[in-house]
């Protein structure tokens, strides 16, 4: 060490650089992360536990005899019936129709939400006029739109898509508007000094900065789209086009309790699955930005 100091004393810049490097290394430290299997299991077992508890309660209610089994089927019968249906191509077609509607409706909602969000966040007059209206639209139960939708479009898929968009687009627009509003002022100041103005400022600073909030809006928008879609499929029954909502409707008509519960499970699982996709995206973003919670 003494030799080191003596030889480097001629070049203070070197000592200086090495001191900095030493401090940097100390500050960064070493973070250890647990293995993939351990993390996966850590997330999986609480979910499995939750499922087990729900199944137990369900079975308990069935055994209590409050309702006869043809009205409220037990888990065993429900999953049996569900397995049967899942090996039937027609059921998959129904799922396919529902998913197609969900994806198209959501995609159009994203487009509409983006355009409205961008306009409203940029133009002051529009903000004053429509800002609170967009938030208001979010609180409107989507089922309340159906009578109007059916009047306008008849019992068609357009009626369903119309309501899905009205349900999802406001959330997505709001997500973008919030993101733009909450761009940290310090970043705006720094960007201004760097020379970013107008469109460049939008493209390189404000839009990326609003991404987390936009993603939250997308997630909420999806939840609204999925709910509106199910409501729509129950109300707007289109002949020769089987869908999950339509299945629910006929299961009730035919008092097929096991089939009805099975389809409800499918709807729940799809909803959760897509929500997980959004969460994965959100987590990846948080990790990149350093926003994630410290996990011990």
């Amino acid at each position: 060490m003494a030799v080191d100091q003596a030889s480097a004393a001629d070049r203070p810049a070197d000592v200086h650089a090495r001191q900095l490097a030493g401090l940097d290394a100390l500050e960064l430290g070493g973070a250890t992360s647990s293995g993939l299997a351990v993390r996966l299991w850590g997330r999986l077992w609480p979910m499995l536990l939750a499922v087990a508890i729900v199944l137990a309660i369900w079975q308990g209610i069935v055994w209590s005899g409050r309702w006869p089994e043809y009205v409220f089927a037990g888990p065993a019968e429900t999953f049996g019936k569900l397995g049967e249906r899942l090996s039937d191509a027609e059921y998959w077609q129904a799922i396919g129709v529902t998913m197609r509607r969900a994806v198209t409706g959501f995609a159009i909602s994203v487009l509409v939400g983006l355009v409205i969000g961008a306009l409203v966040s940029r133009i002051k007059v529009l903000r004053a006029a429509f800002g609170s209206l967009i938030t208001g639209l979010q609180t409107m139960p989507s089922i309340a739109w159906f009578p109007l939708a059916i009047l306008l479009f008849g019992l068609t898929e357009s009626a369903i898509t119309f309501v899905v968009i009205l349900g999802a687009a406001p959330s997505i627009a709001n997500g973008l508007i919030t993101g733009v509003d909450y761009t940290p002022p310090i970043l705006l100041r720094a960007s201004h000094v760097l020379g970013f103005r107008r469109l460049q400022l939008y493209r390189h600073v404000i839009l990326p900065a609003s991404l987390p909030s936009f993603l939250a809006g997308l997630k909420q928008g999806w939840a609204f789209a999925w709910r509106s879609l199910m409501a729509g499929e129950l109300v707007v029954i289109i002949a020769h086009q089987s869908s999950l909502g339509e299945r629910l409707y006929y299961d009730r008509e035919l008092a097929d309790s096991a089939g009805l519960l099975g389809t409800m499970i499918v709807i729940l699982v799809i909803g959760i699955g897509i929500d997980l996709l959004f969460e994965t995206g959100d987590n990846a973003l948080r990790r990149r930005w350093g926003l994630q919670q410290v996990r011990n």
Partner: protein
Amino acid sequence: MTAPLTERASRRTKGEEPAVRLDGVSKIYGQGKNGLLALDNISLSVEPGEFVSLLGASGCGKSTLLSLVAGLDKPTAGTLGTGGRKIAMMFQEPALFPWLTVAANVEMALRVQGVGKKERQERAAEFLDIVHLGGFGAKRPHELSGGMRQRVSLARALAQEADVLLMDEPFGALDAMTRDLLHDELERIWQKRGLSVLFVTHNVREAVRLGDRVVLLSSRPGKVAEEFPVDIERPRVTDSPEVAELASAITNRLRQEVLRHGR
């Protein structure tokens, strides 16, 4: 270390227009009776290649003054000029873009000027080398320590190739040891690149350690109270008796300013 000093002295030739010039600048926030006078008739200049420390207690409008020079805000009265020079600014926070890598953050200074991708990458790497962060370009800002982030911020400011560097308490949030190292760092870069620096701080020793001149602002409203030339040979050390002596003299003067508000 002596060579850059003489170089710098020769650059500061008489007759050359100041790098930053404020003439009777006032700033009032709000209007009418409720208006708050933040800056009162400030006249101040930074010569080309000069390092000026702007010192004051809280509420003296130091940051307001920098915002005015940076063009982030407009003065209510007075004139303000930089003779068409380019201005870069560092804030108390690093103000890095969290969605970009360290290198891409530095590149932002070049991107806005329309520099091509390849050249951007090369030059960003150079500027990161200057602040001794050559190996950290691919990291994200949150993966670095506070001192390292502030160096990235410095690299980004340097990448603007500006003549004037405004610094708003850039090392205020750092620990003493990191701050000392960054003082050395800043002094070296300033001398080498011939920057004109206006450095805002509330730390008297820091102001003396770095500045060719210390300008003391009074509080509420902000006014130039006194100027202190710093004739201490560079490179300086914060703990040296010369720095300590001048610092204590300035601290006494600062104390008087603060006392005026105690009554």
